[in-house]
């Protein structure tokens, strides 16, 4: 668990980060969003002390980060940046082995861990271990960057625009992959992004920042239905609101008893996807099946629309 308490960074009179406090629960993803210059990256970099706070403190599992030597602290925290910063003179395997090597793991342990991570990210060790970063595609570099950050099994992963350099198709795949690996490993993630879709797609909670201040820290749905300030409403996009809301909910939540004709939707699909299918096929209702394919009921356009409405 990460507790950020009254964290402040001043350069001269200007406060880049101004008295920010929030808490990230174990194993969840928190996204920090805001316009450029809002202080997102500075906030993130104060967590691993790449930037020394002017005031306030960060607790990781109750321990003040100032009490830990900064290099030792960073060994325990994964760090991924836009552009990844892979070491160009080192192979993929050597890049991933960076922190375990600093921690003095033995050779066999490191080799096993590198192989495990390459497998986890769908990179064949036989093919990729000996490659150099410039021989990789953007998507492969991104995966190596995340694998390197996870090498020493950190409980916390900090990511600064980690998908910013990817094209939209690969970006979406990379986000799904990160989410599934995060769920599997139970890693706590703090992610900085200016892409609202990314924040809504990945985050359990979203922190909205503007001019160094934290405006709201809430679950994505709450951000949509109960924006704390006009700025938040503007940032999440008032026109997009119903659709974002629908993409946060699953068919499970709107399924009704009954049957319908056609190819069934899955309970795990988002309401957003379900609505698109209904519109596209020109249908009012479609059947719904569970994960094993057994029918569990049906879903209708009107029920979906009801879920996308503002709640008083």
């Amino acid at each position, binding site marked *: 668990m990460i507790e950020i308490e009254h964290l402040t960074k001043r350069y001269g009179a200007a406060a880049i980060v101004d008295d920010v406090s929030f808490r990230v629960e174990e194993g969840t993803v928190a996204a920090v969003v805001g316009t450029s210059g809002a202080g997102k990256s500075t906030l993130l970099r104060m967590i691993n002390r*790449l930037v020394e706070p002017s005031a306030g403190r960060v607790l990781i599992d109750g321990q003040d980060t100032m009490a830990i030597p*900064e290099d030792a602290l*960073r060994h325990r925290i994964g*760090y991924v940046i836009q552009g*990844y910063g*892979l070491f160009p003179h080192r192979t993929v395997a050597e890049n991933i082995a960076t*922190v375990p090597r600093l921690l003095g793991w033995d050779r066999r342990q490191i080799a096993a861990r590198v192989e495990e991570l390459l497998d986890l990210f769908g990179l064949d060790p036989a093919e990729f271990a000996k490659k*150099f970063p*410039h021989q990789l595609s953007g998507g492969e570099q991104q995966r190596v960057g995340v694998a390197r950050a996870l090498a020493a099994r950190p409980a916390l992963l900090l990511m600064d625009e980690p998908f910013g350099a990817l094209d939209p198709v690969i970006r979406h795949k990379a986000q799904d992959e990160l989410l599934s690996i995060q769920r599997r490993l139970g890693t706590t993630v703090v992610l900085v992004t200016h892409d609202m879709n990314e924040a809504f797609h990945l985050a359990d909670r979203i922190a909205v920042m503007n001019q160094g201040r934290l405006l709201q820290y809430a679950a994505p749905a709450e951000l949509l239905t109960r924006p704390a300030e006009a700025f938040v409403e503007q940032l999440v996009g008032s026109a997009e609101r119903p659709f974002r809301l629908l993409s946060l909910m699953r068919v499970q939540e709107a399924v009704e008893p009954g049957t319908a004709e056609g190819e069934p939707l899955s309970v795990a699909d988002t309401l957003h996807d379900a609505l698109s299918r209904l519109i596209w096929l020109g249908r009012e209702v479609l059947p719904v099946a569970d994960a094993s394919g057994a029918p569990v009921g049906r879903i209708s356009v009107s029920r979906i629309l009801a879920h996308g409405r503002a709640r008083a």
Partner: protein
Amino acid sequence: MNTILQTTVPGMHSSRSHIILDRLGSVIAVLISIALFAAPFATYRANRIVAGEGRMLTEALPTAGALGVTAVILCVALCAVLARAPVIRLAAAAAGLGAVFPALGWSAGFLTPAGNTFARVSPALGFWLLTLALALLAADALTRLRLGPLARLAALAVAAGAIAGLLLSGAWNDLSLLKEYANRADSFWREARQHLWLALGSMAAACLVGLPLGILAHRFRALRAAVLQVLSIVQTVPSIALFGILIAPLGYLAAHVPLAAALGIRGIGAAPAFIALFLYSLLPVVGNTVTGLSQVPPAVTDAARGMGLSRRQRLLEVELPLALPVILAGVRIVLVQNLGLATVAALIGGGGFGTFVFQGIGQTAIDLVLLGAVPTVALSFAAAVILDAMIDLAKGPSHDRD
């Protein structure tokens, strides 16, 4: 040049076959023709300081020998014009040099009257032009072969071995250059050692001081501007002036500090030469260290910090390895520059190959000048090849696409 450019248009099958003339090869062929038929191959002088008379190749060798050498060289010229495969062109250049170099030694023996120890035979314009043409052909072929760094080092070793073999075989012993050498064999090797000590020693000292200075200058912006300014100013001082400037303080030091005198520091001699070369070497080393370090991508250093590499680990494991090719490029400049500049050291009694150059100028004995100049040029050339190979090796894995 009668160069016919052949362009292939897609979809059109050319049934005509052109003889394609190589452009550079044509230039080389012209050089070779001038060298063979319009320039003297060797110079004959009755003694070492009188003016010489040129001897054409046909006069410089027995008829059969002259014809043989001419035939070989013409074949080489033909290859240069027509052959396209770099290996064949390289072999042709090697064969040409293999004919011309021994021929020069042979002509010296042939032209020198038996028992005459005063007569001097030295290479003339024709020989130099042939060497230039063949060296061009060889260099061009090597470039086209795109040899890797290790292969280039091997090629250098082969060339050095061939020259050493030629010299050791005695084939050139009748040549004026070797006669000058024979008269001065002891001092030649003493000055060679001195020359290398001045050039390499000052380079090593400049690396020892310049590398840390470059690292500090990279880290502290204020220091960077000051250091680079001062070193740039030093660089603009002419070498002779710098030697002169150093005489006074070093003389004072030698006279008043017994330890300095005991270490061999004097106002003239090797000490001021060494210090001047050292000062000239600092700018390339410091400048390239700063440039190399500042070219390390910021994302890489940020990631390194974020992963908890200490300042020292970042420097040794990330920044210096990535800056190494640029730093080595600075060392290459220093080495080539120092090997040349060290000749000037002889002016203030610093020794080195310059000793022969300045003695030769004083005596108008051009062979003696060559005895100093030729090894200097050969050393600079070898140093450049070796450092270039090292730079490629240092770039190695991270740049193997280019």
